[in-house]
């Protein structure tokens, strides 16, 4: 591709407060339409906003975790525009004096650590939701979301590829979840992003004409939308056509971006300082107390898992994507599981059994249970294959690995005397194959092992079977 891709993301993160940004209404997701609405968040005449200080605290945590510069005095502004889901006719947001600026998010992408600079982090209230009836007879407005606290995390145009943008968003999600400031539920809209993308000739400093893709709510769609845009814009440029500065939206149904509005019709938001709210003054002691209480972030955890447990890049990255996974891992290791075996088992057997990685916190098999099972495998008492059966039983009906193995007589047979009998029986029953083996078809060894395993209902220790077979056949 002859063009360099330049991407910047604006990620909206819903803060995990109990109540809205400027009133006491609940922020609970999924409530019946317009049930979390009061005079303030529906913009009734005469109401005034009162800032939810918890939102400031949560936003500060992210600013600190990303190394941002916190303004001791920031300010809210009004962003004026008309839309039915915007009750007051303006959105209260931060404009020229945001809560924090600068800082960076480190992402691990394609085996490399990359730093994505942040422009700013600011607070704002969410709007409501318009619902258009399929019949076209009416449009309805649900204001449950109106006034829900969001932070907007604006990155510098430091990203260079769609997959990198998706990884950035994933990493940001990991950070906000580790900080406990956002539940990270993409499907509930807790994280949404607007992506800015432009193309420029390699080596050129100036940015190309930028296109904004609005309101993307999944990692996959960010990547797909950007991939689509790169192709669309490259084709236009290849034909010598100019890129139009515009806002587009990703349509998942048809798999492409579509124009929403062009720059010419773009809004003039007529920002001005919000007169109903005094400036936000941040106390240095608050900043310090939050700074010392910052938890370990996913990237640090990842590093630690690699160093302490000797995990691979891949395993460490995957296990630190969700706090619940990391916690499970630590508990399983603490209960005696070997780090690599736990990691491997988690990423295959555990994750295949949950819809969402976060569900492992409530998995029917606790970390100690997994450690116990892996211990049986480690000591050779249970074979890898039978371990999966035991795991399935633990998952569905509970119980300890040892008890299930005992009750079902699922222990690995490592008694050479008993096994030798089984091995001998197989060898004697298949004289023709033995002859073939001895004539040089050594690949038949696998077949013999299989026969012995079948005869012992999978309980035979495969290593031992191998040794015994070799002795008999070769000897």
């Amino acid at each position, binding site marked *: 591709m002859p063009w360099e891709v330049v991407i910047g993301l604006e990620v909206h993160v819903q803060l995990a407060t109990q109540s809205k940004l400027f009133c006491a209404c609940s922020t609970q997701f999924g409530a019946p339409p317009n049930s979390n609405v009061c005079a303030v968040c529906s913009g*009734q005449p*005469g109401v005034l906003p009162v800032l939810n200080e918890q939102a400031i605290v949560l936003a500060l945590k992210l600013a600190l975790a990303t190394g941002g510069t916190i303004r001791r005095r920031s300010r809210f502004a009004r962003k004026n525009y008309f839309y039915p889901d915007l009750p007051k006719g303006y959105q209260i947001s931060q404009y020229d004096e945001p809560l924090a600026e600068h800082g960076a998010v480190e992402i691990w992408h394609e085996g490399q650590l990359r730093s994505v600079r942040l422009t700013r982090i600011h607070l704002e209230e969410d709007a409501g939701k318009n619902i258009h009836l399929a019949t076209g007879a009416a449009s309805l407005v649900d204001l449950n979301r109106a006034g829900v606290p969001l932070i907007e995390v604006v990155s510098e145009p430091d990203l260079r590829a769609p997959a990198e943008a998706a990884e950035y968003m994933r990493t940001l999600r990991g950070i906000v979840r580790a900080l406990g400031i956002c539940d990270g539920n993409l499907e509930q809209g807790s994280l949404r992003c607007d992506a800015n993308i432009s193309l420029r000739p390699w080596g050129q400093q100036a940015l190309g004409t930028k296109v904004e893709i609005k309101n993307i709510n999944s990692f996959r769609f960010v990547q797909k939308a950007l991939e689509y845009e790169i192709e669309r814009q490259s084709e236009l440029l290849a034909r010598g056509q100019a890129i139009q500065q515009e806002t587009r939206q990703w349509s998942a149904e048809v798999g492409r971006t579509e124009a929403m509005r062009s720059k010419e019709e773009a809004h003039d938001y007529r920002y*001005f300082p919000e007169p109903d709210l005094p400036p936000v003054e941040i106390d240095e002691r608050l900043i310090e107390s939050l700074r010392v209480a910052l938890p370990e972030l996913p990237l640090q955890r990842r590093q630690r898992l690699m160093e302490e447990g000797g995990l691979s890049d891949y395993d460490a990255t995957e296990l630190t994507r969700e706090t619940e996974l990391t916690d499970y891992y630590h508990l399983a290791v603490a209960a005696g599981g070997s780090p690599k075996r736990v990691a491997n088992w988690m990423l295959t057997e555990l994750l295949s059994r949950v819809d969402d990685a976060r569900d492992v916190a409530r998995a029917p098999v606790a970390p100690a249970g997994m450690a116990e099972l892996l211990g049986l495998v480690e000591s050779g008492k249970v074979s890898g294959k039978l371990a999966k059966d035991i795991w399935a039983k633990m998952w569905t009906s509970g119980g300890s690995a040892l008890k299930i193995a005992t009750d079902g007589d699922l222990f690995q047979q490592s008694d050479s005397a008993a096994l030798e009998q089984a091995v001998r029986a197989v060898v004697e029953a298949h004289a023709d194959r033995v002859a073939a083996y001895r004539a040089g078809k050594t690949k038949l060894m696998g077949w013999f092992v299989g026969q012995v395993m079948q005869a012992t209902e999978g309980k035979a220790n495969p290593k031992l079977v191998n040794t015994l077979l070799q002795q008999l056949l070769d000897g």
Partner: protein
Amino acid sequence: MEILELTATALAEQVRSKQLSAVEVARAYLARIAELDPILHAYITVDADGALEAARAIDARLARGEDVGALAGVPIALKDIFVTRGLRTTCGSRILADWVPPYEGMPSARLRAAGAVVLGKANMDEFAMGSSNENSAFGACRNPWDIERVPGGSSGGSAAAVAARLCLGALGTDTGGSIRQPAALCGAVGIKPTYGRVSRYGVIAFASSLDQVGPLARTTEDAAALLEVIAGHDPLDATSLPQPVGRYREACRRGVRGLRIGVPAEYFAAGLDPEIEGAVRAAIDELVGQGAELVEISLPHTKYAIATYYLLCTAEASSNLARYDGVRFGMRAARPQDLGDLYSRTRHDGFGPEVKRRIILGTFALSAGYYDAYYAKGQRVRTLIRQDFSQAFERCDAIVVPTSPITAFKLGERLDDPLQMYLADIYTISCNLAGLPGLSLPCGFSSQGLPIGLQVLGRPLGEEQVFAVAGAYEQAHDWHRRVPEVRR
């Protein structure tokens, strides 16, 4: 009739001691309203049932021996900008003609909690925009001293109702003089307290950084009593001040001995009616006679006040009035073609010409490319005006000036000339830009028998000094005792 002549403080005392019942008082005032309001049109909504019910409740509580508060049984009018739960609140606009609010605002809630009885909602210029009350969508209110004249605006209904004994006290709002100017034109006492002294929760916003709630009353002490009730921090208004409320009633009797009274030359300039200048100068002499010290001061940026005010207030208004879009409450255009049509027809039909004019001006002042030249510059000038006052208050404790350059003018006289109309607030606007307390009280009558207002300005949270000056002057005169004879 005797009930109607009692001051608020005296009446509350009689109700508390059961010499008078709250119901009797409410009936007397409702009868007066029935008689005169058809002429004056000081009310948009009279809530006779609600008033009698509230009065009965107060009497019942008194009968049970409960304390009913400092304003027991005091009948009051609320400018129709105050949100009242279950009682229609129009803000003088067609767009809210049928709006029945789902909640109660703080100033009225505090009055009710102190035992006041709300008689109804007073007439006003639409969304508090105007200096004559002629911008009310429900028809102009008239001046009780001469019904061919305006009561002033935008709290004209509140001022006229107080002056004509259609209530004993009233609440107004003052964005650029809307309490003090009509108080002056109707011969009432009106105070705009320090910005943030009274909660704006439940007060329909015009220009948020300038709006302030205040009482109108017949005497300074009544105004002080009302202010003591409504003032104070409100957690529902982030701009409300945390400082404790002063002792305003007591301050009215403090006297002016030793107080330094500032008189700025800029307020006695061309355009000031000579009769008003004479009355104000006589009032200053009176204060000096009582032991105040006269200090010449200068407020050099006064000449920019009106221009600054109209930039800032229209900018904020354009934003504050965006919520009247026909989606959630109030008027909605019938059968809109699409969203744009819903907005434009609702707002076209719902807003009057002055409101539209200010929305357009404010939208322009905030728009990209003009923000720095207008809004941002306006804010800088505002700072200069504020500094003028803080420098002046290093040399004096209160400033005494005229409230209005003219007495009540005739209905329609200035209606076609908005700029001329805007000049009616020339002496009151600076005080809002600086966030200071300002009080107007009667200081005489013109040769045509029209009231003249004296304005006292104070430092931020300097309400006590303001009341001290106003109280001292009031005790030496009986202008406030004159009752207009309302003639058809």
